[in-house]
């Protein structure tokens, strides 16, 4: 329950935000949802996905297309993560056999293919995309203000964080964490390695898909360009900055990077800056950040800080603990 004060603080913030800032808040929350999933995937299944925004796109287009065909938006929002998870299962079966860089490239290729298919598909509006999507309405209440979406997104972040942390603390989660560092020993202990890798991939896709669904109703239009490869890279940078396999880290990483990108964008759109400045600056900053993190804080920000904190608050060896079974408590993320 340590996280309750943070949720309360996050719930107070939107009240004080102007319209533009509320948009940033919503986008930040959507990124955080996707990054919580990606952090699980990278931290526990040991897989890097450079195409995670594919699943955001699949969720968004699912919600958008259903809405265009007069399916109630709430139903579309529920189907969005399911569609993304199904897509992950379908592509995951062949792709998860690949390791390391190969998987990163395969997921990247996947996103490029998806974007080009969407760009050519008449049923998805082609390059123009889907326009004039309705607002989300929940049992007759229409969410038609940015503030509504801010709270919806907060709910989404809490939901993904709760699902992720109960997953990590469970039997399956221990299996996942085990296979992250010693897959052979994990499998010999009865952990179905292949199925679990697929499971985290599907869960990570579902989180991204849910974020995509909310995005569709928040923004009201979708185009292939809404989900560039840069978004996938942004997710990876957020996950790495926060610390892989750390749920709090994923959220903090998303926050830090979003704020940084905001600052850069306002810098890059100053008069006299060329039109390509925002894009180039973002790529440059991501590259520099990745290098700095890998060199100096390889565990990511949150795990490093919490480690340091623990060391300072508990001088000397940790005392032996009561061996009673109830104390054999699974820890949080790594």
């Amino acid at each position, binding site marked *: 329950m340590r996280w309750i004060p943070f949720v309360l603080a996050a719930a107070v913030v939107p009240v004080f935000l102007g319209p533009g800032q509320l948009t940033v808040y919503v986008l930040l929350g959507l990124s955080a949802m996707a990054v919580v999933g990606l952090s699980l995937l990278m931290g526990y299944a040991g897989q890097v996905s450079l195409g995670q925004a594919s699943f955001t796109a699949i969720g968004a287009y699912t919600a958008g297309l259903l809405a265009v065909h007069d399916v109630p938006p709430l139903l579309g929002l529920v189907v969005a993560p399911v569609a993304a998870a199904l897509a992950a299962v379908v592509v995951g079966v062949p792709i998860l056999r690949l390791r390391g860089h190969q998987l990163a490239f395969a997921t990247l290729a996947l996103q490029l293919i998806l974007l080009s298919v969407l760009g050519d598909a008449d049923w998805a509006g082609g390059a123009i995309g889907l326009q004039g999507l309705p607002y989300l309405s929940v049992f007759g209440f229409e969410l038609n203000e940015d503030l509504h979406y801010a709270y919806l997104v907060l709910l989404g972040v809490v939901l993904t964080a709760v*699902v992720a942390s*109960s*997953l990590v*603390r*469970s*039997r*399956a*989660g*221990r*299996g996942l*964490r*085990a296979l*992250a*560092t*010693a897959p*052979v*020993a*994990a*499998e*010999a*202990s*009865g*952990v*179905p*390695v*292949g199925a679990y890798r697929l*499971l985290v991939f599907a*869960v990570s896709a579902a989180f991204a898909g849910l974020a995509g669904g909310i995005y569709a109703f928040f923004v009201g239009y979708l185009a292939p360009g809404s989900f560039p490869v840069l978004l996938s890279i942004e997710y990876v940078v957020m996950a790495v900055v926060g610390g892989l*396999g750390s749920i709090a880290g994923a959220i903090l990483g998303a926050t830090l990077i979003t704020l940084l990108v905001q600052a850069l964008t306002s810098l890059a759109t100053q008069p006299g800056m060329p039109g390509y400045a925002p894009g180039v600056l973002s790529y440059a900053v991501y590259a520099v950040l990745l290098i700095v993190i890998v060199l100096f804080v390889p565990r990511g920000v949150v795990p490093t800080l919490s480690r340091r904190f623990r060391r300072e608050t508990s001088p000397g060896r*940790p005392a*032996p*603990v009561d*061996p*009673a*079974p*109830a*104390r*054999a*408590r*699974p*820890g949080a993320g*790594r």
Partner: protein
Amino acid sequence: MTALLEVRGLTRRFGGIHALRDVGLDVREGETHAVIGPNGAGKSTLFKLIGGQLAATAGTITYAGRRIDHLAPHRRARRGIAIAFQDAPVFHGMTVAENAMVGAHAVTSAGPLSAVLRLPRHRRDEQVIRTAAAHALRRVALHELADQSAESLPLGRQRALQVARALCGRPRLLLLDEPASGLRGPERTALAALIEDLRGEGMSILLVEHDVAFVARLADRVTVLDLGAVLATGTYQQIRSDPAVIAAYLGGHA
């Protein structure tokens, strides 16, 4: 006594190297069976074939009356085969208790959905897992370190942790690949006592060990491997007087 594990004609090549050549071996229900042989004899390869970490080039493995050589390792674990590897890997970023708990995977089944929804099944399994882990850790005298991080343990204790993890799966057949290597005197004695206890409880054990005294004390039967082939099988008394074994392995000791 019937054989719990029957290995027949087992062969494994790595490129040009015959790591195992037409190996036959039985582990009877309830016996402690040692596999000895010089470095590179193929002992670990044999264990990995039985555990499913490696696939055989030829031959069959029958366990409890059924062929298991086509099964994935985690399925063999569910059937009751547990293995503690020679290189004793522990799971990093997890406590000693959590490491042991992973071993209980083989005897529980609560899925991720039941954990997220906190179904009774999840809670029941968690209880089973915690009890099993606490029990197993006590058996290897690691219970006082339950909340420490596993990778901070000295190597000998990591080995013990691997044994605890294996025990958490309540195996019917336990494979121990050099569990005593790197252990100090008292730890060694404790391990021998544990193996005797497990045997007393009816567990079948396949054990690789270089220490002849250790083998002589624990093993009902011994199989001697050399260059991937079986040289002899029998009681320790029988194999120590086998001329081929004396020539190839025991040499000066016998």
